[in-house]
């Protein structure tokens, strides 16, 4: 995937008419596809039965929606809704507070870890790529580190950081940083020599070439990598929450699993998918805007 620095001159329709596009009224089809998913879900919940303990394997849509109330159990109390653990009745308001509370916690863990990891990974990658010697030294260790099961290092981070927030941030940042470091180094490596050669012939210094030619030209590749790292970072946050935390979406998922409550698992997973998908969408929009000059 090469990026062009100078957009090509546009061809007039008379010269190169594009073949007719296939997507007609995509909005209708998108809506239809979501309706189809709901239909399939409903059919599955009806046709697929229950497991040995009587829990339906595929929870029905109404069951999932009513499981929304479980979020009330994860609200530490206050603002008009008391802790259900101490005996208070779960209310819709309590559930909403609980939902927002846990989403905010998980989201903050994601954001800190992701941003930290991106800055560290891309930054380190750019620094190392500056020097060919540094690149040669770091290539194999970085490759090896990336091939190690990054997420499975969670227990190690537990040993190093205990159950602290810092541990969660560090774990998420680490996973993202390793990924993006390897990607950045590879991207700089693949920049066509043509760009630096032509910039040199225009009189640019090495630093200027690096800053104004090489770094912009790798942004499309970086965009792909950063977007790939978004769900990956979320997986890291969920894993960290499942094992060591009191609040957070991962924690709720894990407890639902322990009680084999498919409907609670479903509603929590739905929230995760929406939030994670949302962060992905926003970031994609931002990155697309930054790389709008790409061919």
């Amino acid at each position, binding site marked *: 995937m090469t990026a062009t620095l100078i957009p090509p001159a546009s061809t*007039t*329709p*008379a*010269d*190169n008419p594009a073949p007719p596009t296939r997507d007609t009224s995509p909005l209708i089809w998108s809506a239809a596809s979501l309706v189809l998913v709901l239909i399939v879900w409903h059919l599955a919940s009806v046709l697929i039965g229950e497991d040995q303990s009587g829990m339906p394997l595929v929870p029905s849509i109404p069951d999932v929606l009513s499981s929304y109330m479980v979020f009330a159990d994860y609200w530490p109390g206050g603002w008009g809704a008391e802790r259900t653990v101490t005996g208070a009745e779960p209310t819709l308001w309590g559930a909403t507070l609980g939902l927002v509370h846990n989403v905010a916690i998980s989201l903050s863990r994601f954001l800190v870890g992701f941003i930290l990891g991106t800055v560290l990974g891309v930054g380190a990658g750019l620094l190392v790529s500056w020097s060919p010697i540094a690149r040669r030294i770091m290539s194999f260790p970085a490759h090896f580190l990336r091939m190690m099961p990054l997420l499975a290092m969670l227990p190690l981070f537990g040993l190093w950081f205990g159950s602290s927030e810092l541990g969660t941030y560090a774990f998420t940042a680490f996973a993202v940083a390793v990924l993006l470091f390897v990607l950045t180094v590879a991207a700089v490596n693949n920049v066509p020599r043509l760009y630096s050669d032509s910039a040199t012939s225009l009189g640019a210094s090495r630093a200027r070439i690096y800053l104004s030619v090489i770094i912009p030209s790798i942004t499309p590749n970086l965009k792909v990598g950063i977007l790939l790292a978004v769900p990956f970072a979320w997986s890291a946050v969920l894993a960290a929450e499942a094992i060591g935390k009191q609040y957070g979406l991962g924690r709720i998922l894990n407890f639902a699993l322990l009680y084999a409550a498919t409907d609670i698992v479903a509603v929590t997973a739905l929230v995760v998918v929406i939030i994670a998908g949302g962060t992905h969408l926003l970031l994609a929009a931002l990155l697309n805007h930054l790389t709008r000059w790409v061919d």
Partner: protein
Amino acid sequence: MTITTSSTHTRQALTRTAAIELRNVSKQFRLESGELVNSVNSVSFTVDPGEFICVIGPSGHGKSTLLNMIAGFLPPTSGTITVSGSPVTRPGPDRGVVFQRDTLFLWKTVSQNIEFGLKARGVPKDQRKTIVAELLQTIGLEKFANAWPKQLSGGMRRRVAIAAVFANKPEVLLMDEPFVGIDYLRLGQLHQVLLDLWQEAEKRAVFMVTHDIDEALTLADRIFVIKHGTLALDMKVDLPRPRRTEDITSPQANELRRHLLQEFSR
């Protein structure tokens, strides 16, 4: 080898089915802004079997659109296009196209690329082998029969691409600036290869878009000049074949060149 003069041309036009016939063909495009653009304006001409036509003209004036309509990639907004008597509705092997971009299949050898169209139409193996062997000889790449395209230079790949189209013996051959970017030395080689293939294929009609006046004078029986989507000039090239350097720099050739250049600057 006869050179068609005006009178024989008319006689042949009356007795044989035209290879390509356009009648009042126009093409309009709608831009994103909603504006309508007239790319081709009421073009009519007849190309006989055995004629080599070169189409020349400024960029963006409709040459490629014309070719794409004859090939069947685009329908005309109005007018009719017939090839060998049948109306053109979609692309097909009777109208072979040599594209400007590289369309060789990288995962197939040179021989496999050339025989691909034949294989797709069920031509039996030994027949395919013979056809491929003959073509390889004509284009001078017998030694590269089992090479990957990646092992070939740009000019060699062009030769293979052209041979692959000739293998299907199309009624007409359509070429959209097939030799752009080939260096001048190789160009002469490629022209000769094209003419050899053309000879061996009983000189099927060729409709070739080009930017290069010398190329047109070397190859064509007639040169069309397309300006602003219309056929501005239909000029016969009465130079003897084979055309060597002397022939395309002769006073007669220079007269034709002057005529063309005048047409451009009008």
